[in-house]
C-alpha cells in the first residue's frame, strides 16, 4: 500500500513538473499545428488520406486514424527526448540523494518514473486528441464520434506511449546510453522500430514483428487490405485527383485478435523495466562517478580521450582579444573538447581528394559528415550554462554572444568540411556555395535551438529527423536538400538556405536579448 502511494506520488510530481513547463505548451502547440497541416482543407488540393487517387471523406474515423498515426510517430521521437530526463533531473537537483536515503526500492522507483513518463505522454496525447476532435467542427464532413477517436487512439498510440516511456527510462538508467551518445543512438533505434513496423506489414515472421510494432502501421495496413481491399494508401497531406468521389473510411476493426496483438505490443516494452532497474545506480555518488567514467567508454568518448594529444597544439595558438580571435578561440575549444573533429576533417579531406566521383562525394559522404558535425556543434551554445558570469566578464562576450556562437559553429563546420569544399570549389562552384549555405543553415539552427532550449537535445532530434527526411527525399524537395547534396546545385536554393540561416541567427539574437533582459 505504501509502495502504491509512493509510486503515485512520483507520478504526480513528475506530471506537475512537466506540465507546468513552457516548453510543454510550445511542443503541444507545435503538434497541434502539425495536426492542422496534416489534415488540410480539401479545397487546397491536398487531403489527410489518399486512396487510389481519391481523397478520404473527413469523418471521425478518418481524422482519428490520421491524427493518431501522426501522434505515434511524434511520441516515438519527440516524446522520448521530452521525457528522457526523469533521473537526470533528480541527479542534478540532488533530490535523488534524498530519494536514495528513503526506503523506496530500486524497481519501485524506476517503475514509478516509467509511469511518470507514461502519464505525461498520455495526458499530452489526450490533449492532442481533443484538438483533433475539434477539427471535425472546422473541416469535418460528418458528425463528431468521440468514441471512435478514443478507440483509434488507444489502438494505435497506446503501444507507442508504453514503448517510448520504457525506452526513455531504460536509456537513462544504462550508463552507456544515458548521454549524448544515447540521444543519437535512440534516433537510430527509432528508425529501426519504424523499419520493423514496415517489415511486419508483409513477409516472413510478420506476426512476430507486429508484437513490437509500436506504430500500429502493420495492423493498420493489414486491415486496409483485408477490409477495403487496398494495397496502398497514403496518410498525411496527400495530393489527390480533383473530381473523384471521396472515399468513405469507416474506421479500423477492433477484433479480438487485433486488440490482442496491440495489447502484446503495449506489454512487451514492460520487459525493459527490470533491465532499467538492474542498471539503476540509486544516485550512489561513487557509482555515478564510475558510471560517468564508463560512459566515457562508448566509442566516440573513448576515441576523443585517446585523441586528446591531437588537440594539445591548439592551446598554443596565439589569439588576441579581437572578435575574430574570440570566434577562433571558441571553435578551438570545440575541437579541444572533441578532437575526433580534427580526424574527421583530415579523413574527409583525404576522401574528398581521393574520390573520383564528385557526385558520390556530394550525395554519399557529405550527408554522413553532417551527422557527425551536428553532434560536434549541438552543445556549442548550451555548454556555457554554468560559465556565463565568467564569460560576461570578458570584453564584448555578452553583447556579441549570439554572433560569436553562430560564427564559431560555422567555423567548426567549415573546418571539418574544408577538404570537400576545396574539391567542390575546383570542380563545381555552385555545389561549393550550396555546401557553405548548408553549413551556415545547420550552424544557425544549432545556435538558435541551443539558446532557446538550453540543451543540445532539441537540435539533435530535429536535425536528425530533418536529415532522415533529406536522405530519403534524395533531392525531390528543395526545402530538404540543405547542403545541395542531391542533383544539380541551384544558387537560388543555396541563397534560400543562407537566408534561413540569417533568419535563425537573428531569432537566436532576439532570444538571447530577451534572456539577458529577464535573467541578467
Amino acid at each position, binding site marked *: 500500500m505504501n509502495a502504491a502511494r509512493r509510486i503515485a*506520488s512520483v507520478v504526480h*510530481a513528475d506530471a506537475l513538473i512537466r506540465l*507546468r513547463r513552457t516548453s510543454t505548451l510550445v511542443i503541444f502547440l507545435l503538434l497541434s499545428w502539425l495536426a492542422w497541416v496534416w489534415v488540410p482543407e480539401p479545397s487546397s488540393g491536398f487531403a489527410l488520406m489518399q486512396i487510389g487517387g481519391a481523397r478520404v471523406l473527413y469523418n471521425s474515423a478518418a481524422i482519428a486514424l490520421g491524427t493518431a498515426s501522426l501522434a505515434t510517430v511524434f511520441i516515438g521521437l519527440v516524446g522520448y527526448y521530452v521525457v528522457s530526463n526523469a533521473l537526470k533531473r533528480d541527479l*542534478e*537537483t540532488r533530490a535523488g*540523494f534524498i530519494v536514495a*536515503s528513503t526506503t523506496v526500492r530500486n524497481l519501485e522507483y524506476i517503475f514509478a518514473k516509467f509511469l511518470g513518463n507514461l502519464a505525461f505522454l498520455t495526458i499530452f496525447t489526450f490533449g492532442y486528441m481533443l484538438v483533433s476532435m475539434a477539427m471535425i467542427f472546422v473541416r469535418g464532413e460528418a458528425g463528431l464520434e468521440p468514441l471512435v477517436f478514443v478507440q483509434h487512439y488507444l489502438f494505435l498510440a497506446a503501444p507507442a506511449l508504453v514503448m517510448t516511456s520504457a525506452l526513455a527510462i531504460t536509456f537513462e538508467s544504462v550508463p552507456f546510453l544515458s548521454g549524448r551518445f544515447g540521444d543519437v543512438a535512440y534516433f537510430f533505434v527509432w528508425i529501426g522500430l519504424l523499419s520493423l513496423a514496415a517489415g511486419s506489414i508483409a513477409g516472413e515472421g510478420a506476426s512476430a514483428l507486429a508484437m513490437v510494432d509500436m506504430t500500429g502501421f502493420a495492423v493498420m495496413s493489414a486491415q486496409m487490405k483485408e477490409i477495403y481491399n487496398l494495397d496502398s494508401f497514403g496518410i498525411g497531406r496527400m495530393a489527390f485527383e480533383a473530381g473523384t468521389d471521396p472515399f468513405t473510411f469507416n474506421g479500423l476493426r477492433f477484433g479480438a485478435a487485433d486488440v490482442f496483438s496491440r495489447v502484446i505490443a503495449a506489454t512487451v516494452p514492460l520487459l525493459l523495466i527490470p533491465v532499467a532497474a538492474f542498471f539503476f545506480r540509486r544516485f550512489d555518488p561513487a557509482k555515478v562517478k564510475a558510471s560517468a567514467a564508463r560512459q566515457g567508454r562508448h566509442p566516440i568518448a573513448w576515441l576523443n580521450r585517446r585523441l586528446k594529444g591531437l588537440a594539445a597544439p591548439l592551446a598554443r595558438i596565439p589569439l588576441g582579444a579581437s572578435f575574430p580571435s574570440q570566434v577562433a578561440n571558441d571553435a578551438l575549444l570545440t575541437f579541444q573538447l572533441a578532437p575526433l573533429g580534427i580526424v574527421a576533417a583530415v579523413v574527409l579531406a583525404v576522401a574528398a581528394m581521393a574520390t573520383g566521383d564528385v557526385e558520390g562525394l556530394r550525395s554519399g559522404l557529405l550527408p554522413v559528415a553532417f551527422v557527425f558535425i551536428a553532434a560536434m556543434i549541438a552543445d556549442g551554445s548550451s555548454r556555457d550554462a554554468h560559465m556565463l558570469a565568467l564569460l560576461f566578464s570578458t570584453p564584448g562576450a555578452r553583447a556579441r554572444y549570439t554572433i560569436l556562437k553562430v560564427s564559431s559553429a560555422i567555423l567548426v563546420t567549415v573546418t571539418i568540411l574544408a577538404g570537400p569544399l576545396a574539391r567542390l570549389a575546383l570542380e563545381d562552384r555552385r555545389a561549393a556555395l550550396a555546401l557553405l549555405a548548408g553549413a551556415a543553415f545547420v550552424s544557425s539552427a544549432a545556435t538558435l535551438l541551443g539558446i532557446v532550449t538550453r540543451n543540445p537535445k532539441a537540435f539533435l532530434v530535429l536535425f536528425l529527423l530533418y536529415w532522415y527526411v533529406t536522405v530519403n527525399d534524395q533531392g525531390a524537395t528543395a526545402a530538404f536538400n540543405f547542403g545541395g547534396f542531391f542533383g544539380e546545385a541551384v544558387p537560388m536554393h543555396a541563397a534560400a538556405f543562407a537566408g534561413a540561416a540569417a533568419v535563425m541567427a537573428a531569432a537566436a539574437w532576439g532570444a538571447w536579448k530577451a534572456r539577458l533582459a529577464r535573467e541578467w
Partner: protein
Amino acid sequence: MLTIESVSKRYRGGHFGVRDLSLTVERGVLGLLGANGAGKTTLMQMIATITRPTSGRILFEEEDIAKKPDALRRRLGYLPQDFGVYDNLTAFEFLRYFAALKGVRDRARLDQMLEMVNLHGVSNRPVGGFSGGMRQRLGIAQALINDPDLLIVDEPTAGLDPEERVRFRNILSDLGGKRLVILSTHIVSDIESIATGIAVMREGSLVMHATPEEIMRQAEGKVWQAIVPSTDFDELRTRHRVSGAVRKSDGVHARFVSSTTPFAGARAAEPDLEDAFLLLMNPPPEAVAA
C-alpha cells in the same frame, strides 16, 4: 546510537574519500568540521546509506546499516549539500512529494513543518522563485517530515546570508535535544554555539572527536595576541598561523597560534574554537629564530 567502525571509502583509481575512520556518537548535535575535500560529505553519504563503505561498518542502534539500510532509512532525515529543488512545484507540493516517499500521510504534519521553517505563508508559491535561504529551510522541512531520530545536514549554511545562517543555526539547535543531528561545515561559527560534540576531519581521516571544550582546551597556551606595526605583519604571517587580525591606529591587532612563546610583547590568549580548529588543521610551524 551511531557507531562507525574503521570505515573507509576508496574510489576507483585508489583515492580514499574516507580512511579508517571510527567514531561513536549519541544524541545531540555533532559538528563535523573539516576543510573542503576532507571527506565530510563522503562520510555523511555513507551514514545516509547513499553509498556503501568499501571497508568497515556503520551501526545504527547496533544494526549494520549496509545489511539493513531500511531500519535506518525509516528514521533518517537527510539534507544534501547544494540541495536543489523542482522549480515548478509549490513548497507544499514539494514537501508532500517527499512526505509520500517517506510514508508520511498526515497533512497536519506538512503544515506544521512549513510553519516551523516559516514558509507557511508562501506554501503555494513555486519554489523556483525562492531565495537560497528559503530553499534550505524547505530542505530542512523535508528532512524533518518523518520526525527522524537521525538528521544529517551537509553544509546547510553555504550560500546563506548572515541572518539566514543564524535562523538556520537556531532551528538545528532546537532539534538536537531529542535526536542525533550531524552537521557538516568548514565554517567554525556554524557549530560553535550549538554543537555538543565536534569531529574534526582532515584528508579523509578523523583528527579529533571531543566536546567543544576539550577541543579548545588542547589549544591552551598556544594562542597568542600581539599588536604589531603593519610593516611587520607580513613577517608575522610567514612565521605563525594567524587566526585573526584587525587593523587599528596603533598597528595590527593579530591573533595567532604558536606552540612556544613567539616573541616579547606577545600575550597568551584564551583559545576559541576557531583557534583550536586552525591548530588541528595546521600544527604551528616553530617560530624562526629572530
